[in-house]
């Protein structure tokens, strides 16, 4: 709030005395922010309380009654984790593992590819690099829903031009690979754009000094660019991880709903049963699926604020 605190973690550095910053640090604004935060958190609190209440209570009255007649227990969580909801033999655990096995590679692949592509497009001068960058960026307009069937066809049938096979069909049925590939493809345009703008604005002097010292492109990328753009990488990693973790459409289309490959979201969608008979389990299931993104968010949070400004104004 004070000038002292504003010192650390200030991404803009020089703009300490700006009117905007002053407006945001007034006590009135703080009260407002706290009020909004509380309001914003109430539904989540309701979800948490509901997940702890037994079914007959949830049916009878609203969650706030739990404060008057507390009858809380971990029954729903036990059912979801170990009995698997409406009678299925496996609990939520295999799906949790699947979710991790899908989300981690689907975050790392686009991150690595996009960081390299962004460096290449920003600092390696070659003919048409701006055009390539523009095309990659323009690809963002392709909505994922439109690309599902063509992509599925590509995986199952390959690509042919007349009798010429351009891409042979790959049998990836029942594995994580199609989900990784789909997520990677759809993440790349935004990732390249975001990281390119960040990397392109690194000071030129640094690069020149490195070149004078005899560093190769790969050395520059690894020792200078990567450490400097950690905030951008982290913020993109959070975005991408949350997107993949919460994704249902891509997983359902490319992985299917078998316990071998299906992530948590697919299982959550089925948890209530054909006729919605076990809907009380949904709140507990939802809370279990929030835990991992929360861990990711809090562990990368300090980069997040800095990274949000990646590619925007630089002071």
């Amino acid at each position: 709030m004070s000038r002292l605190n504003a010192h650390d973690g200030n991404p803009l550095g020089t703009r300490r005395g700006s009117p905007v910053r002053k407006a945001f640090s007034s006590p009135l604004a703080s009260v407002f922010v706290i009020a909004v935060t509380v309001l914003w958190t109430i539904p989540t609190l309701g979800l948490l309380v509901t997940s702890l209440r037994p079914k007959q209570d949830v049916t009878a009255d609203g969650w706030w009654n739990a404060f008057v007649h507390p009858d809380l227990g971990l029954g729903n969580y036990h059912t979801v984790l170990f009995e698997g909801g409406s009678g299925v033999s496996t609990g939520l655990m295999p799906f949790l593992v699947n979710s991790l096995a899908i989300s981690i590679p689907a975050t790392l692949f686009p991150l690595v590819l996009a960081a390299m592509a962004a460096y290449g497009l920003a600092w390696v001068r070659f003919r048409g690099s701006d055009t390539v960058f523009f095309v990659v960026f323009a690809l963002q307009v392709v909505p994922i829903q439109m690309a599902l069937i063509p992509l599925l066809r590509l995986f199952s049938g390959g690509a042919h031009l007349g009798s010429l096979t351009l891409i042979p069909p790959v049998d990836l049925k029942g594995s994580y690979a199609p989900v990784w590939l789909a997520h990677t493809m759809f993440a790349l345009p935004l990732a390249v754009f975001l990281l390119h703008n960040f990397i392109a604005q690194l000071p030129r002097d640094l690069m020149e000094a490195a070149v004078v010292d005899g560093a190769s492109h790969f050395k520059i990328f690894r020792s200078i660019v990567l450490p400097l753009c950690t905030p951008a990488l982290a913020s993109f990693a959070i975005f991408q991880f949350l997107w993949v973790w919460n994704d249902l459409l891509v997983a359902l289309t490319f992985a299917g709903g078998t316990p071998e490959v299906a992530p948590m979201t697919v299982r959550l969608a089925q948890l209530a049963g054909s006729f919605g008979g076990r809907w009380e389990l949904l709140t507990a299931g939802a809370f279990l699926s929030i835990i991992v993104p929360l861990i990711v968010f809090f562990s990368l949070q300090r980069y997040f604020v800095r990274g949000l400004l990646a590619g925007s104004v630089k002071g």
Partner: protein
Amino acid sequence: MTPNPTAPSKSSRRRLVAAPALLAALALTAACSNSSGGSGDGGGGAQTLSGDCAKYQPYAGHSGTTVTMFASILSPESDNLEKSWAEFGKCTGIKISYEGSNDFESQLPVRVAGGNAPDFAIIPQPGLLAQMVKSSKVVKPPAQTVANQDKWSPVWKTYGSVNGTFYAAPMSANMKSLVWYSPKTFKAAGYEVPKTWADLMALSDRIAKAGGGKPWCGGIASGTATGWPATDWLEEVVLGTYGGDVYDQWVGHQVKFSDEKITAAMKTVADWMQNPAWVNGGYGDVKSIATTTFQDAGAPILTGKCLMLQQASFYKAQWPKDTKIGPDGDIFAFHLPAVNPAIASPVEGGGEFLTAFASRPEVQAVQNYLSSSDWASSRVKTATGWVSANQGVDKSLYTDPIDRLSADALTDPGATFRFDASDMMPAAVGSGQEWKSLTAWFAEGQSIQKTAADIDAAWPQ
């Protein structure tokens, strides 16, 4: 804009390219090693089954194979399905890999169009079956499956057929023409289960005048499918008033919604379920029908605030676990009588059809088994809540009174059975405009003429 510190050396550029390629290759190898699971010892050949397995001899010879199945049935119902063919799987060595999804109706066309069709899909809507057949990916059933159809009444075969060609064998049947009530409450008040529509209306009037609970409750809210229970009400009245022929013409749009026959049927529904004195027991006025979920609709019957609910046999799953269901219990159901007494026992129902997208021998073996009376009996024995209209199933296997009631009506040769009309109409109407318009009819009091005209306008040309 993008300053270049130096001319890149050739070697460094090559390394830059190599790294992502290596990564992608790694991903692919990891994926391939993951996908090879599933098939066991292979082989098969002429294998002879003995003991308990002897009855599966006709399906033998495909040990170590896997067939995939995709359906909208979720656990716990799907667990019972898997149990019902567990012995078959153990004896023949054919593994049925089942996948249930509540996005089945939207996912199946995507997977089929994407060349990623499952071996089997259990399709509950003849309209979706027709759409799949149009994609020319559906495989015609083997001769044995066709022969197994003799055990079902002929009308079922037509629902598994598209343009006169038989594609999909029915697996299950459910009955929608049921009225849930409480035998206890009826007994205490001295009410009799009505046998005719006139009796039913007279009883409703009597209950309404007696005070206490209202005669009817209903709920048509069901997420994105809000409105479907109302389509059932209209369908039952159309079938019970005019019989099967008009019903079929209505499904085919030769008789439009704005036809006076259908608007008259809508008037009958309005006099019944939109009568302010009769509904909505336990919830409020007529409009509350649109906001009450179909799952909750019947709950007031247990407290006596409402006496009757028209809902399908599968509504049984909604009653609390300790509810005693039976002719003398807390809850039971009766067959909704025909509006026109001349129509013999109208039964509106639904069913699920086993559709194959592959013709491998193990797929055909499973298809033959699942269309047999043996499998139907096995499923009925596994757990309650499943009815087959297969006449080869011994009725005494039904231990649940509701299942028995439905099975009796569904296999009755004298009954006028018709499939749920909204499931057979084009999706734009049957699972689109009709839901929306009927919901508006209940929620906003929209006129019958406008409701009918709106639905007709949505019919694909």
